[in-house]
């Protein structure tokens, strides 16, 4: 009957209860939308980075990361083939691609910039990455030709380059000596990551080999079947390859993406915390009002023998019920809204350039994150529990004789 009393008590002041329940529902709804939006944006950025450039993991010579010299190769060509077979045999690996990676300079008639030259095997690259989908001009090594170069749009603009412009690349050869070779722009790409576009350019590995003298493999890109548990998978990958080589997960290759994930998790907890804090004060205020209005009744209950434990329980149940009504409504609305947004997307075209700097598309598609539903449910219950303490203490401190008289 205590539950019945608590439930009916909620509806004694309908307007006030509706406002509190509405606040809880709106708070949770907003929280879920923010979560969906944040995850959608972050996961899209991560998926984009993994898909277009990074892969889920990369294998390098163990010295490569300290100083990416041209001599720090993974292995000779035949050993790389065997290595890739070993890696591709792992159950969670969907494919691999190899790359020559050289630090160098690009010179145009207008300017020069430090760049990272990616010597690729285009057929593999097209299978293992989606970079070919981000061409804004020209093609991604589909047409025949020698010394062709694919450059990021942002870098091309900085250097005043257009399609078919001629440039000179300076880089280390296999002996560590500086070499030069001229290339012609055959394609201009624009990924979601403007920073990447400004620093990386792509050439056919064969064109580099003419200068390098031999195919040099500095990097083996590894794609996993799914983007989950990538750290564990990277660990398993490291255990499967020979000593002297190092495996880096996408979070290590692009630490800013991992930091963004961590930051997002912290920010979401903070945002939810702020929402819950606001709800906390709303609920406390509501319950204090209820206690004030019902002090005669509470005094009577204490006088006739309702012990403190039961009185506390009654107020606790009443407070929790506010959360139990508002919580599911908020979760339902949040889920409904997020699903709708998942279909139509949130168009932020007006902030396109800024979002591109963050590696994000201008239309964000929120994601449903079921684990956060549980977190929110726990937070609402905890908030209601905390909110019940002060009103319950107030009630317990009532003097029955004075309360019955309405003092």
């Amino acid at each position, binding site marked *: 009957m205590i539950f*019945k009393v608590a439930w009916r008590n909620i509806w*004694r002041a309908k307007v006030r209860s509706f406002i509190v329940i509405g606040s809880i529902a709106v708070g949770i709804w907003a929280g879920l939308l923010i979560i969906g939006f944040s995850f959608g944006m972050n996961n899209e950025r991560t998926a984009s980075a993994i898909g277009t450039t990074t892969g889920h993991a990369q294998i390098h010579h163990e010295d490569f990361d300290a100083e990416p010299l041209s001599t720090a190769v993974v292995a000779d060509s035949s050993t790389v083939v065997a290595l890739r077979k070993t890696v591709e045999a792992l159950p969670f690996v969907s494919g691999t691609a190899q790359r020559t990676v050289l630090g160098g300079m690009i010179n145009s008639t207008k300017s020069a910039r430090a760049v990272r030259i990616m010597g690729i095997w285009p057929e593999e690259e097209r299978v293992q990455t989606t970079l070919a989908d981000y061409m804004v001009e020209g093609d991604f090594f589909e047409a025949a030709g020698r010394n062709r170069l694919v450059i990021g749009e942002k870098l091309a603009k900085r250097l005043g380059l257009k399609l078919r412009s001629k440039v000179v690349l300076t880089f280390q050869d296999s002996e560590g000596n500086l070499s030069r070779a001229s290339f012609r722009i055959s394609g201009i790409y624009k990924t979601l990551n403007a920073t990447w576009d400004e620093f990386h350019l792509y050439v056919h590995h064969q064109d580099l080999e003419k200068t390098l003298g031999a195919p040099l493999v500095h990097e083996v890109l590894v794609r996993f079947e799914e983007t989950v548990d990538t750290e564990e998978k990277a660990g398993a990958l490291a255990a499967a390859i020979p000593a002297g080589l190092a495996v880096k997960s996408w979070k290590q290759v692009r630490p800013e993406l991992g930091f963004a994930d961590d930051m997002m998790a912290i920010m979401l907890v903070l945002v939810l915390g702020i929402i819950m804090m606001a709800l906390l004060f709303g609920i406390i205020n509501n319950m204090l009002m209820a206690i004030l209005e019902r002090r005669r009744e509470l005094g009577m209950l*204490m*006088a006739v*023998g*309702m*012990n403190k434990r039961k009185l506390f329980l009654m107020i606790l149940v009443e407070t929790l019920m506010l959360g139990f009504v508002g919580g599911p409504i908020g979760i339902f609305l949040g889920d409904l809204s997020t699903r709708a947004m998942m279909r139509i997307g949130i168009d932020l075209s007006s902030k396109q350039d800024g979002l591109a700097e963050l590696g994000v598309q201008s239309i964000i598609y929120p994601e449903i994150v079921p684990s956060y539903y549980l977190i929110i449910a726990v937070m609402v219950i905890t908030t209601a529990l905390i909110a019940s303490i002060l009103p319950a203490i107030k009630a317990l401190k009532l003097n029955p004789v004075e309360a019955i008289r309405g003092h």
Partner: protein
Amino acid sequence: MSKPVIEVKNLEKVYKGAVPVHAVNGISLTITQGEFTALKGPSGCGKTTLLNMLGGLDQPTSGSIAIGGVDITTLSENALIDFRLRNIGFVFQAYNLIPVLSAKENVSFIMLLQDRPKEEREARAQQLLEAVGLKGKEDKRPGQLSGGQQQRVAVARALASKPQFVLADEPTANLDSQSTANLLDIMEQLNKEEGMTFVFATHDDRVLKKARRIISIEDGKVLSDD
């Protein structure tokens, strides 16, 4: 001879302040089972303070109050709450029913606090409501009942816990003549037929006419005991 239900000895209640007020000043009295007693006196004479102390709602400055042989002044706060629940019935001037519960639920609620089984609660609540003349009104909420009917529910509630006695503080103060007469008839009937002890704090002549014992109080002392 009936056994004593309430035994008060040298009871004093002093409210401290710049000038200490002796609200109850050395009262001793005994109330036996089956009494229909009224405490009367002018406002501020100390009758409500005495009633509150008899009900364990207020602690005396000195003296003792034994209810059914138990000195309630020595009980801890929690023990006293439980003692009130099981031994004392209360009827208040302003009825103080729970507005969100029906008449029957209001009566049952006390038994719920006593952890009595549902069947017993239902049956006794029904029986008590019938005894106070509210058959057919069981599902009405207090707001749907007249003042007299609400006070009758309060009497049924007071009896629900099977107390040793019922304390009623100005139970008729908010009632019209007809409702007062009905209520007093019911309480007198319960007193005579079931031997329930009633102690009233009142200055209502209608109650005093029905009372078989009237204790007059003035300045915190018993002036007369008839």
